């Protein structure tokens, strides 16, 4: 008994293996675990809704808000509600959505989208934030993070106390107990689930975990990967609406289970990506993300995992270019707390883009020709020599910044390195000759 009571979770690498195995084991019986979750939530007096796509999810949430007579909705940070474009739908119904995560609040004022999964306003300077606040409050604001945070606290505090409905995502849901789990650092998740009369959580169907013991494994791993904390400041376990005897808490609790292409990947090539915890670790280490930033991906989820999630939610067609926005260096797979093999799936996606002839014909032909050339040394050397002659009119100071015809598309946003005056192969041959 004692050994059992004091045995801990495995640590380090073994903990990552454990977490991944739990995710996979859960997916293998996803129907069973979701049924337990739904049964428990309904037993607690909560309601569960099913959305096949963004449109259905929007309609469900808007209907709940309308029935509650809501005029204002406070939201805690949620990628799922970003994904379904909920804010615009609420606005169309005359319901004001208020993002309450500081970063989300900032980008909502700027009418932008998040550029990072866990630090959505990372692309804004404090000066830009101060300008946004000045415009909103119509008074001068000092560009100091401490002061800006104080202002946001005061502004948003009023909204928390006034709002009729609270909308959240969910980091996890525990099947055995009917618990929805929210992880935040600011405390807005607690506000949103405690103060308004109605709470709606929108969650991808893959986020269920079987038991409290499983949940603790993920809590032990999530914050470390996301922000380097041992645990985020607030982990909130919510079981349905307010209970008898409780002074506060919502009278109504709703969970919206979201499909949007997730379920099809249970049997599809992107199944591994269903294990994603949305920690953002793969973004932070990705050389491409670090160069281009989150907005350049052009979809809800940026970064390496974002490419896979975009393909999952919007189809392979939508990532015909993004599938190549990776150097396949593997840093993302190393950083992933649940060991998702992102590069492997990116290669699969590229293959699919090619096989289904989704890419433009010119690109396909170019890559086919390139493959021919790269696999034939003699042809490669010939092309190098021809290229050296042809590039003469375009090479300036060691780079090619303008090409004619449709080749110009390549050089519109980047330079092309010219073929060297003496290629490596030529130098190598010469060195060998000399050594002889």
């Amino acid at each position, binding site marked *: 008994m004692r050994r059992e009571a004091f045995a801990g979770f495995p640590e380090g690498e073994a903990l990552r293996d454990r977490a991944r195995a739990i995710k996979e084991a859960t997916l293998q019986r996803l129907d069973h675990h979701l049924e337990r979750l739904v049964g428990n939530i309904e037993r607690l007096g909560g309601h569960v809704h099913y959305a096949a796509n963004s449109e259905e999810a929007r309609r469900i949430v808007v209907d709940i808000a309308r029935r509650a007579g809501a005029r204002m909705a406070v939201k805690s940070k949620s990628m799922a509600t970003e994904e379904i474009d909920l804010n615009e739908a609420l606005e169309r119904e005359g319901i004001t959505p208020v993002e309450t995560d500081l970063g989300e609040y900032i980008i909502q004022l700027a009418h932008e989208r998040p550029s990072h999964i866990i630090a959505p306003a990372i692309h804004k300077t404090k000066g830009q934030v101060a300008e946004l606040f000045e415009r909103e409050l119509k008074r001068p604001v000092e560009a100091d993070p401490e002061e800006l945070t104080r202002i946001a606290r005061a502004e948003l505090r009023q909204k928390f106390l006034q709002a009729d409905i609270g909308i959240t995502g969910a980091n996890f849901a525990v099947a055995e107990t009917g618990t929805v789990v929210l992880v935040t650092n600011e405390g807005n998740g607690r506000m949103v689930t405690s103060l308004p009369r109605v709470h709606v959580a929108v969650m991808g169907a893959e986020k269920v975990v079987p038991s409290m013991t499983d949940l603790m494994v993920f809590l032990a791993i999530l914050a470390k990967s996301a922000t380097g904390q041992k645990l985020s400041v607030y982990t909130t376990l919510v079981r349905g609406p307010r209970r008898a005897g409780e002074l506060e808490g919502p009278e109504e609790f709703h969970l919206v289970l979201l*499909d949007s292409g997730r379920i099809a990947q249970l049997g599809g090539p992107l199944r591994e990506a269903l294990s994603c915890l949305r920690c953002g670790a793969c973004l932070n280490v990705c050389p491409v993300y670090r160069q281009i930033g989150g907005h350049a991906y052009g979809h809800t989820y940026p970064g390496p995992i974002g490419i896979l999630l975009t393909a999952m939610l919007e189809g392979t067609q939508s990532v015909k270019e993004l599938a190549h926005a990776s150097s396949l260096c593997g840093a993302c797979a190393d950083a992933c707390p649940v060991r998702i093999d992102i590069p492997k799936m990116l290669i699969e996606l590229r293959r699919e883009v090619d096989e289904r002839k989704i890419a433009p014909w010119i690109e396909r032909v170019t890559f086919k020709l390139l493959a021919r050339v790269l696999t034939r040394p003699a042809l490669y050397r010939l092309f190098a020599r021809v290229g050296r002659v042809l590039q003469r009119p375009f090479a300036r100071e060691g780079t090619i910044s303008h090409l004619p015809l449709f080749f110009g598309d390549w050089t519109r946003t980047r330079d092309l390195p010219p073929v060297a005056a003496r290629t490596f192969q030529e130098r190598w041959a010469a060195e060998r000759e000399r050594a002889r």
Partner: protein
Amino acid sequence: MTTRAEFFAKIRGELQRKPALFAASTAARPEYPAAQADTIRRELAERWPATLEAFRVEFERVAGVFHRVASLDDVAPAIDQIARERGARDLVSWHPASVAGDGLSRALTARGLGVHEMPAGEAADGAERARLRAVTARADLGLTGVDLAIAETGTLVLVSGAGRPRSTSLLPPCHIALFDRTALVESLYQVGVFLEAWHGDGTPPAAGAVVNFITGPSRTADIELTLTRGVHGPKEVHAIFVHGGLRG
């Protein structure tokens, strides 16, 4: 609209196509969690000082302020000092039955603090509920008990319920939590055992809908990655350890 049956049928269909990527199992759950939780408590009753010290180190690492007092009589002076240093006047408290009994509120009132105790159960009506919320939103200090104090992470676990509103530890800018050795646990794994027991064959500390893990004061780094405290929740979290125990 998609029905429950359609949703589940689709999941089952896909799982038939690909039952498994590799052989895997979920976490091994404790068979008798309540008994195991008791074992953890019993063992820790003997070596709590090391657990408390580990908790203090982690709690201070996450910017919590740790206090240690000898007995229940020393709690009011400690809270009074926290209040004086901050020019705080109003304190909102969980119902005394969930903190340290009736004596503490009297002692704090005697020291000149405005003490607002939350009711033992629901508010009589909407107006009363609104009044209590306004009192909480205005208060300088929020006083609560603690159900578990996790040494591994410096975390306070608070279960909501009758007399234990969620907002007491959330709306005031300074949260003060009282605990004694009975709340101490070593690890997240042990917390898992307690959570299994509370939802299974054991008795939870309260019957509310929410369990909150609180690891230091509210924080954000959303503006230029500069760490700032107190964005929505409290700017300060104090944990007062009562050596002699909270129940006398």
